[in-house]
């Protein structure tokens, strides 16, 4: 069982990496790119048979407290 957490910068936060990569994509000739947002992807291995609802709650709690900073980042949790 795995928890997958995707962390992205909030829209209001300037993302200089995203801006730089967007420019690079444009230079390479990729058209139609209207935005690039660079975040983090975290995978957490969970013991087999872990209760999915309890794991979702715990991972969301951890994502809020430690894995992301809610002042500047949004996160999405998937358990599978």
């Amino acid at each position, binding site marked *: 069982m795995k928890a997958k957490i995707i962390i992205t910068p909030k829209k209001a*936060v300037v993302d200089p990496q995203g801006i730089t990569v967007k420019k690079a994509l444009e230079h390479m000739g990729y058209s139609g790119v209207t935005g690039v947002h660079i975040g983090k992807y975290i995978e957490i291995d969970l013991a087999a048979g872990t209760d999915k609802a309890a794991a979702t709650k715990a991972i969301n709690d951890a994502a809020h407290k430690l894995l992301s900073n809610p002042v500047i980042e949004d996160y999405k949790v998937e358990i599978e």
Partner: protein
Amino acid sequence: MNFAVLQFPASNCDQDAVHALQHLGHSARLVWHKDASLGDTDCVIVPGGFSYGDYLRCGAIARFSPVMQAVKQFADNGGLVLGICNGFQVLTEAGLLPGALIRNRDLQFHCENIFLKTATNDSSFTSQIPVGKILRVPIAHGEGCYFADEETLAQLKANNQILWQYCDATGNLTDTANPNGALQNIAGICNEKRNVAGLMPHPERACEPLLGSDDGKWIFESIFAALKNKTVAQAA
């Protein structure tokens, strides 16, 4: 005065802070991150460095160390806490200061001398800075761009919580004088209670002329004055 300078794995300005405080005539000692108590302390300095390797986010892991619980309690009781560079990042992550420090807008690590304008003398961290004095102090960071949402920024302004801003040599808050893209050129702030402050520049590296500038001492002199007033008030 007794200063407690925290020491996390990969703090690297802890000795500088101890040296500066001792040079300015006060007692300072290191407190290990696993210690749950600060001991006899008048003021806590959270020093610069790369605590816990800056893994995940700068300051994100340090905030959960046992000593930070003691710092939180110390701050809740009105104790003075100053975070410098990584220490500022730790204090924002810990929720002791509002906002966050993000990647410099040019993605570069900046190690240079900058100029600081003191936005208000009304704090325990700025009271002794001569009015109109522009401080020349070094910065050394890759993630020092101050960010806060509009609501928080409005509160900071309304409560006079912005303490220092990046400026040019004559005190103008220009965009070129802003080394990292910080909102409103913000270099340092304090909390609403005005007993916890953080700044990205390194005043502890500028406390003696031999180091090129002793402007940083004014920030520590302000803390000494605040602590002295407190002692006098308690005795009275």
